């Protein structure tokens, strides 16, 4: 449920801004969850707001999601179970 609410908040930020807050929220979301759905949001942003321009948001999101997914095993805090 928290993940869904977080994703909805990111979609709202994508249409209302500010962009730095959107970027920060998307980065935290990508750290917490597998953020492949952010690629769809970025594709929608570039298709609607950036028609005719290079798909900057899409490319940056794809790169960021891939890099974070690759680095996650090394940056995640290990939890000990007793």
């Amino acid at each position: 449920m928290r993940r869904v609410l977080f994703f909805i908040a990111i979609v709202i930020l994508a249409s209302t801004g500010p962009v730095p807050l959107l970027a920060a929220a998307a980065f935290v979301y990508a750290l917490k969850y597998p953020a492949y759905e952010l690629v769809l949001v970025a594709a929608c942003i570039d298709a609607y707001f950036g028609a005719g321009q290079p798909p900057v948001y899409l490319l940056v999101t794809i790169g960021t999601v891939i890099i974070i997914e690759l680095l996650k095993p090394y940056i995640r805090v290990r939890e000990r179970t007793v």
Partner: protein
Amino acid sequence: MVAIAPFLFAAIAAAIFTPIASTKTWLFHSSASFPQFFRDRAALIAEVESLESRLAGESGNQFTIDALSRENDELRHLLGYEGEARILAGIIGRPNALPHDVLMLDRGIKDGIKEGAPVFIGDSTIIGIVRTVSRDSSIVELISTPGFETTVFIIGPDIFTNAIGVGGGQLKVGVPQGISLQEGDLVVIPSVNSGVYGAITHIESEPSKPEQYGFVSTNLPLSSLRLVSVGSTPVSPVSFEDALKVLAEQRAALLKVPVPEGVLVVASSTASSTATSTDVLNATTSSSTTTP
């Protein structure tokens, strides 16, 4: 499938983002009683007082503007120019909030907005072109969008040059060092029957470099805009001769002086008036001295 994907994503984005942007504008900027109830009352009172004082100060300017506007309409009517029907649209998204440097309007296909139509502020200042239209909203690519190239005419040095958008409502024009570019030089966009876009507000010029750059901004900041008008027909390519005609009209309008009625002497083909400018001035002076 690859060719259809951008249109599919744009349609999905329009369906999701438009209601969100409209709701945000209604909550934070509308004058409806429900959102106003939740806004800061003190801030509203301060804003009202500030606007009242500004209104009192600008009433004189408004009279001049109204007189010029009436005269402009009369002259256009005399020349047989009926004008173009325009669609009023509200701004629900601005460049500082949206992911790209664009404007989002609350009018779309169902309101008659067409792709490629010019978007104006005031009566005749073009600020952008409609790039994407959905059913209920549209996206406007601003002239000042980074990379957007426009042909402009700078009044002062009287030159045609290309202006490139740099974002933030600003254009950048680059000219050789030998050309006298000054702050305050007016910039006109002759490709559309538009008024003065703005003036040069900042110049970057180094004697060691062969070119100098001027930055052009509009008189009205984009953040203060609430309404724009959208042309009903898309912009079509303009020939150089048509662009010169537009420029001639704009330059003539710049030299118009709002002379009050009764002082302006206009030659009439039927009337046999022997009044001279001196007589009119004396009549004006005597009427002003007799007025208590």
